[in-house]
């Protein structure tokens, strides 16, 4: 990373890059965006196909409680990763486990879990806010490129590697299991195991993307680019790559634009707003196509 930063500093000093490239945190943020974009885009495809958008949103919101618990247990307020991952994982696994053992409709069940997680998080955060600088909490909740360190990039790289490996090894079987679970079981595809692997990956992604997208908005970035791509594509290959393109370009632009125009907007918020704009444009394009 150091050599990349030095190279870009030199290019900026030589006038080849805009002034904002003199800041190391921007370069860290852009590298993070280049990893987060494909990660959220790729996994978002499966989130939408598996109809788990609300679930991933709930896991993202559970991060609120995870962060509060981490700080209470003495983890650094800027990166309480152990508690964040631990709580998100327990939340996601418990939700999935209860789902398979109750007849309550899934959306209602996720709603109950989401409400409990937010209420617990809100109660704990009010207490935690007295102990730490509230801006640090804002950074974790809504994302900030100022806080991205080399260790965060390393975590992102590892999580990205795990997700790519999982997609390469199980992607097709996971799709078949999603589209027709009974047929998949007959074909000896371990449907339940894939579900649990997916749940763990969502928890991992939430932790890895927390610095840039923010704990609260990670779920949105899994959902919005994929929903947009679904509107404008016709097959899985188009859907997957279009999703990654949207997600990555929104992540990069969400970091660069506030810097370029000196806007005091958290990176998570700007990324999600840009993705939402893309969604609105896709809806409009889709409507136009229907009348053409």
């Amino acid at each position, binding site marked *: 990373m150091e050599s990349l930063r030095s190279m870009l500093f030199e290019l900026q000093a030589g006038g080849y890059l805009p002034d904002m490239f003199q800041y190391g945190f921007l370069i860290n943020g852009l590298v993070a965006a280049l990893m987060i974009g494909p990660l959220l885009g790729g996994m978002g495809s499966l989130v939408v196909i598996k109809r788990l958008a609300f679930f991933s949103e709930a896991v993202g919101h559970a991060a609120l409680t995870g962060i509060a618990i981490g700080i209470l247990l003495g983890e650094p307020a800027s990166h309480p990763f152990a508690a964040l991952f631990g709580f998100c994982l327990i939340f996601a696994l418990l939700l999935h486990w209860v789902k398979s053992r109750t007849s309550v409709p899934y959306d209602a069940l996720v709603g109950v879990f989401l409400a409990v997680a937010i209420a617990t998080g809100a109660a704990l955060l009010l207490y935690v806010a007295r102990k730490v600088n509230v801006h640090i909490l804002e950074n974790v909740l809504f994302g900030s490129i100022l806080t991205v360190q080399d260790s965060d990039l390393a975590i992102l790289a590892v999580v990205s590697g795990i997700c790519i490996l999982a997609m390469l090894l199980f992607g097709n079987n996971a799709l078949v299991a999603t589209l027709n679970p009974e047929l998949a079981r007959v074909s000896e595809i371990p449907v339940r195991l894939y579900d649990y692997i997916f749940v763990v990956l969502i928890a991992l992604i939430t932790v890895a993307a927390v610095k840039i997208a923010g704990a609260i908005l990670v779920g949105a970035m899994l959902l919005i680019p994929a929903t947009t791509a*679904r509107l404008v594509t016709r097959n899985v290959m*188009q859907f997957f790559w279009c999703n990654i393109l949207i997600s990555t370009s929104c992540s990069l632009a969400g970091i660069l634009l506030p810097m370029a125009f000196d806007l005091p907007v958290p990176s998570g918020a700007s990324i999600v707003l840009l993705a939402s704009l893309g969604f609105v444009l896709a809806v409009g394009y889709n409507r136009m196509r229907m009348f053409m």
Partner: protein
Amino acid sequence: MGPSISLNNVSLTLAGNRVLDPISVELAAGQLHMLVGPNGAGKTSLLKSLLGLMPHGGEINRHWPDPNGKGLNAVRMPAYIPQQSQFDVVLPVTIEDYMSAIISPRPLFFRQSAKVRHQVAELLEQLGLGDKAGLQLGQLSGGERQRLMFAQALFRQSSLWFLDEPMTGLDTEGQTLITDLIGQFRDKRHTLVMVHHDMAFVRRHADNVLIINAGLEAMGPPQLVLVTGTGVSEVA
């Protein structure tokens, strides 16, 4: 040749309600066994129990004619045609994607090899879906979905088939196609277990009929079990 299937005291209870009273029968290898009975009689539940998809009481065992055999006979994974498959209407998954995902381990976000594409095209052509490979799953009619289910099942090259009302939604041409396929499987002595409501079809094609109504009411060749007429009320 397909296996024989033995059921030993197989029963099914769902949410405290007895769906099937204990059944103990032997389904002979290489035959077409047809499950008939009124709606809600437990036919589909029994079929799913045979597939291992439902938690049931008792024992179900498959006995393969060549336990250590290799080649086609060693393909032990059953082929299954579910009653009616539903797919998300706006999901960007085409028929070709779906078949490729079943056939190939190569992730769908990469271009599939020529061999896989050829295999998919061949299977779809066989089921009369050759010109519909680019259609999304949600755009398929009931009959087309049923043909797709047969296409994916054919890939398995199984000699054990479980079919749950396979003619549902099929037009006359589709029904003829599937009837011919079932005839080919019988010629190859595959074991087939099929839920079906068309008594004329049952009379014409079944080797063995099981009349199910919350349990096994009767079993035997159609000419003995179904005496006359078109309904299961006329059981011998």
